[in-house]
């Protein structure tokens, strides 16, 4: 599963190796490896907000890695989800011989709070290796939708972070020009979020009688005749 992703010169780009490098190089940096169960097995690194820019500069400038090109920035919406788990609890149970303490299995439902995520795909033009995948996660999907911008590190992230801001509502602190890029400025929604519902429009269809010559069932009658 964790076969080293080898570049042309044999630099170890595996998530574990990169994590070790980052933790050693940056004091207090917290890096989490995200597993990937799919056949591609591409694992990725979650960076903490405080050290994200520092870690990005390290990845870009390190002479071994030289990840000088950010090819893609995308957003992901992880809505709130209900987690059901079975827990064994000790409980007083009324039995034949009065109340006794027994171990009972209970299902508990907890609400795992959702968050928004920005995913960065990094490559090295100089070393001809990659990709390395970084993830940044917001605190929640409401007010805590802030992330540090990596545009000061990779200029190519500018428009794509604007797109993530436009469609997911992730606010990138430190972005030089954060405004909507695809939708108009007055638009208030974030259409790529899972809970977005596009506005209802009065849509006439052919058989609702609004168009002349298309009475309901007319086609059916013609087929019978």
């Amino acid at each position, binding site marked *: 599963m964790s076969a080293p992703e080898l570049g042309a010169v044999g630099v170890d780009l595996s998530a574990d190796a990169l994590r070790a490098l980052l933790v050693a190089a940056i004091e207090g940096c917290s890096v989490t490896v995200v597993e990937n169960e799919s056949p591609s097995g591409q694992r990725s690194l979650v960076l903490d907000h405080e050290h994200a820019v520092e870690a990005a500069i390290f990845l870009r400038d390190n002479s071994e890695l030289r990840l000088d090109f950010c090819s893609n920035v995308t957003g992901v919406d992880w809505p709130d989800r209900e987690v059901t788990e079975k827990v064994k609890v000790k409980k007083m149970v009324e039995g034949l011989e009065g109340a006794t303490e027994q171990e009972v299995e209970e299902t508990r439902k907890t609400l795992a709070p959702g968050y928004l995520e920005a995913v960065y795909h990094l490559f090295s033009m100089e070393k001809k290796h990659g990709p390395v995948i970084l993830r940044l996660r917001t605190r929640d999907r409401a007010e805590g939708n802030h992330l540090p911008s990596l545009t000061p590190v990779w200029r190519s992230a500018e428009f794509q972070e604007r797109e993530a801001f436009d469609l997911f509502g992730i606010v990138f602190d430190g972005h030089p020009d954060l405004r909507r890029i*695809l939708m*108009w400025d007055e*638009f*208030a929604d974030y*259409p790529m979020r899972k809970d977005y519902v596009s*506005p209802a429009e*009065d849509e*006439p269809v052919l058989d609702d009688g609004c168009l*002349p010559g298309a009475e309901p069932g007319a086609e059916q009658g*013609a087929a019978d005749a």
Partner: protein
Amino acid sequence: MEQELKDLKVELQKQGIFTTTLEELYNWGRKNSVWPLTFGLACCAIEMIATSMARYDIARFGAEVFRPSPRQADLMIVAGTVTKKMAPQVVRLYNQMPEPKYVIAMGACAISGGPFRDGYNVLKGIDRYVPVDVHIPGCPPRPEALLHAFMTLQKKIDAQQLRGEGRPRHLKADAPSEYPVPGYGAHNLEPMHNDDVFPPKPESPFKVLP
């Protein structure tokens, strides 16, 4: 009476005498010199370009002069997906064209939103804001289909009467030649359609063929 006049005209033509009416001459001139606006929105525009080039040659119908300014254009071919962000600009361009002016909605997107109809960002047909003369389905329509639409428009122009209640919009002083430009709202375009043109009214000349 009308039929007799037509027969007489044909008979005279056989004898080498040509007669016409002002209406016929006027419409003949107009229908053979419809200048489209240089205006494409998506892949349908590629087919429109192909139609204007030598192989399909829309010049045969007098429409090869694609004007880069709406002030000089007679026909707007809405070729491609109209996004909600683009819709106000399309209506504004239409408003800037002088009368008489015509609209061909080319392709599935321009007539209904096409494959993007359920999306949040695409207008569900340009006929929500401007009056459309000819609709062409297809994704994209073949150049032949655009030529057919153009010939349909020519027939329509040819049949227009200069007098009477049935006279076209540009000869009615009180008929609108500009249509309201939709504004950008917080969730959608405002208004979502122009009540004057959409949905088509029962008395509308545009019929859905059975």
